[in-house]
């Protein structure tokens, strides 16, 4: 089976019986049809096939998805890192090389403080950081307070920080809690970017791969493009030259 090759019937996939057992050729044929891997003339299409194989691969890895936790002080569980959630998010930010997208409805100084060092380092590396939250347009809000130290330290660094907020009149409630790095991996879970969520509550999150990360980025960018959130401010990238 090669990309570009024409397939006209399940019988041409008879080799699959050795992998999938009797009737394997029919199973594979149906799966290929369902995943839109076959073009109008039965040609095997590269991109859908890649997606299909990735999906098959992910399914096999599903059991290996790592959980990250924030555990309350009273809940010590052997083998579970009580501050794993914050560490996981920090590690994700540290590993980013091009762009970062963070989305959380609630921000608070202690929570953002947990990530500030990594976010500044990312901005110093020239990353584009997008933060989507709510209530950041009010100067006295918790979200504004939380972002302010980062905004001030970000000035002059080569990366840019853009903060978006939901509108008070928007019909949607921003409720996801996501951090995406480079469209390659993402953390999604229950924790807002608050001190309680990253240090004291019971919160759970998982790290997902490229397929999901890309999808998350698409959704967030669509929300921005459709005007469901609006830009509060953007820090200019630092000047590189010296006149």
């Amino acid at each position, binding site marked *: 089976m090669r990309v570009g090759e024409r397939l006209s019937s399940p019988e041409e996939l008879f080799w699959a019986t050795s992998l999938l057992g009797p009737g394997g050729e029919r199973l594979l044929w149906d799966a290929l049809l369902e995943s839109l891997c076959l073009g109008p003339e039965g040609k095997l299409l590269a991109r859908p096939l890649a997606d299909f194989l990735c999906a098959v691969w992910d399914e096999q890895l599903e059991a290996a998805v790592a959980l990250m936790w924030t555990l309350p002080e009273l809940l010590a569980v052997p083998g579970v890192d009580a501050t794993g959630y914050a560490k996981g998010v920090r590690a994700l930010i540290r590993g980013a090389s091009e762009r970062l997208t963070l989305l959380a409805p609630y921000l608070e*100084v*202690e929570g*953002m*403080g*947990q990530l*500030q*060092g990594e976010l*500044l*380092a990312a*901005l*110093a590396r020239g990353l584009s950081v997008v933060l989507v939250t709510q209530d950041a*347009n*009010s*100067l*006295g*809000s918790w979200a*504004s*307070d939380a972002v*302010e*130290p980062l*905004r*001030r*330290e970000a*000035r*002059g*660094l*080569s990366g840019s920080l853009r903060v978006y907020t939901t509108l008070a009149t928007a019909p949607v409630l921003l409720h996801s809690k996501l951090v995406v790095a480079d469209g390659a991996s993402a953390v999604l879970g229950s924790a807002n970017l608050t*001190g309680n969520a990253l240090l004291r509550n019971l919160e759970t999150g998982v790290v997902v791969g490229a397929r999901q990360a890309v999808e998350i980025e698409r959704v967030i960018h669509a929300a921005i493009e459709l005007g469901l959130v609006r*830009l*509060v*401010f*953007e*820090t*200019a990238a*630092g*000047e*590189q*030259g*010296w006149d």
Partner: protein
Amino acid sequence: MASKEFTRGATQILFRHLPEAIFEHDDYGLCKVTQVALREVEVNKDALFDAVADALAMWPPAFATKYPDPRDPAQRGHYTVGAPREVRFTPYPQVFRCRTCSRAGQFTQLIKRGASVTGRCVCGGRLNQLRYVQAHNCGRMEEIFVPPQACAHHPNDLAFYDPGRVKQARWYCAMCRADLQALRMTPCKCAYNQSLPPGRQPEKFLRVVPTADPSLYVPHPVAFINFPEDAQGRLRAAPDALQLMLARTWDMMTDKVHDVVQERANRVKPEDADTMAQMVEALRKVDPTNKLVQDYDAKKKQPKGQAEVDRVNQLLAAAKAQVEPPRRWLVEHTTLLDRTDLSTPADVAAMLRRAGDEAGAADIEQGQRNAEELLGIANIRVINDFPLALCAYGYTRTTRDPQRTVINPFPMDDRGQLPIYALANETEALWFQLDPLRVFRWLLDNGLAGGSPPSTREEAWARLYAEVPGLRQAAHEPMHGQTEAVAVRTLLHTLSHLFLRRIEWSGFAPSSVGEYLIPASLSFILYANRYAETKIGGLTTLFEQRLNTWLWDAVQSGHECVYDPLCSDDGGSCAGCTHREHNCVSFNRELSRATVYGGPTPQQSAFEGHALPRGYWHDAWKAAPEA
């Protein structure tokens, strides 16, 4: 309107003569400022807009809607910033009352009713401006409501009874004495009223206020440290910026970082390099041993500041420090070193010797030795031009309280921009920097740090950088609460307050001196909180003539508290010793005399229960002369 000379100081304008303020003109009576023309002023726009954003954050969102977001660079074009140059005004209010017969009304109405344009009533009495207006918490201000006419029989004889109390003031007919009405309670439809609970409440109406009442116009100024504008962006983005700035802060480099960065940047400019290289290569062909050729080769091999960069890298690697992007504190420290006019005790001693004052020179040299050897202060400098600025961004009426007022920007100028009035001044300041070796040893002595003591200052700096990251982190970052960091911050802050306790030596009251802490460089700055263009010179004189006396006085008086032994048993920080009523940047948190003289640390501090066996001034206290 008028062009007659009426001059006021810039600071006075900032507090009393900004748009929408009412003031009494020497010649024209009560007037309202309509516009204040601006002239250019050199202020750090980022610092200014940060200060404005901080100030606006005190108001509930619905009460600060008239301001474009000052955090957003794209919105800052809606503002114009400048120093007040010329105040324009108009007579206000224009409701007049006769001093003889009490006839009252709008000036134009009174003219129609037979009064003279020179301000004489029909009865011949003198017309005076009525000294009341009505104002609301939302910022609205109007002249008091004048009924359209008096009684039916004498429509032109409206008079005003002014007993000095709003409730008893009445409009009446000057002829038949018929009572017409009390002062009208004008309602307001504003964001402030919408925030109030339903029902009739006095706050929902405009309040009649005397024009001289200070609550009628409350300008809102905010102060900020006016570091040069271009420094931050350029320095931080420069290659090896962290190492160069650390080298400067750690006293390893005497060249200005700005100059070094610029020279390094020019060196790698391709066009310069090409031209220079061509010239050198041409010269090399003729004279390969020429000094210019050799210098060029050496420079290319080792750009300016490279030795320091390498040394800092070595120190950081040896201390296993994590290299991170330079933060603002480092830029600020570097900028103060590079861009301000500094005097050291050595400079002053030289100056005094030139003036023939050998005793004075010896005294300040002794002061420096004491500071270094006994007090653990590596550097004391005078900053002759510490950059301070003050800006007014709006006003409120009836009260200053953000929860009970709407903040109003000053009216837009002709170009549709909102003015912010700023004054940039240079004030005098004293800059202290502790000795990192002594600080590290103090941490070790008190069991707050581990390992062997560093042998040099450079090593101590690197160890502090590596082992006490909390010193350079902002509040709420993970290591900010690190015990060592809290201890060092507490030490610095306490020393700052102890010196302020005896700042009267300078002629300044403690409330007139501000403090600025840069914990990561073990520094604190005490500056004269003045926005006038002149300098009093009190801090400079203190430094030049009484440094030694002041230092010892601080050591001795810092040990005492009227509430001892209760205070010292409870951490050594209370209103009787270290607390300050004004100008404390952290609201009297992180203070303890125990850090300076030893003893129990305060409850609920990061190092609670950790009695400090050795204070930072342990030796100094023992060596201090009897008071």
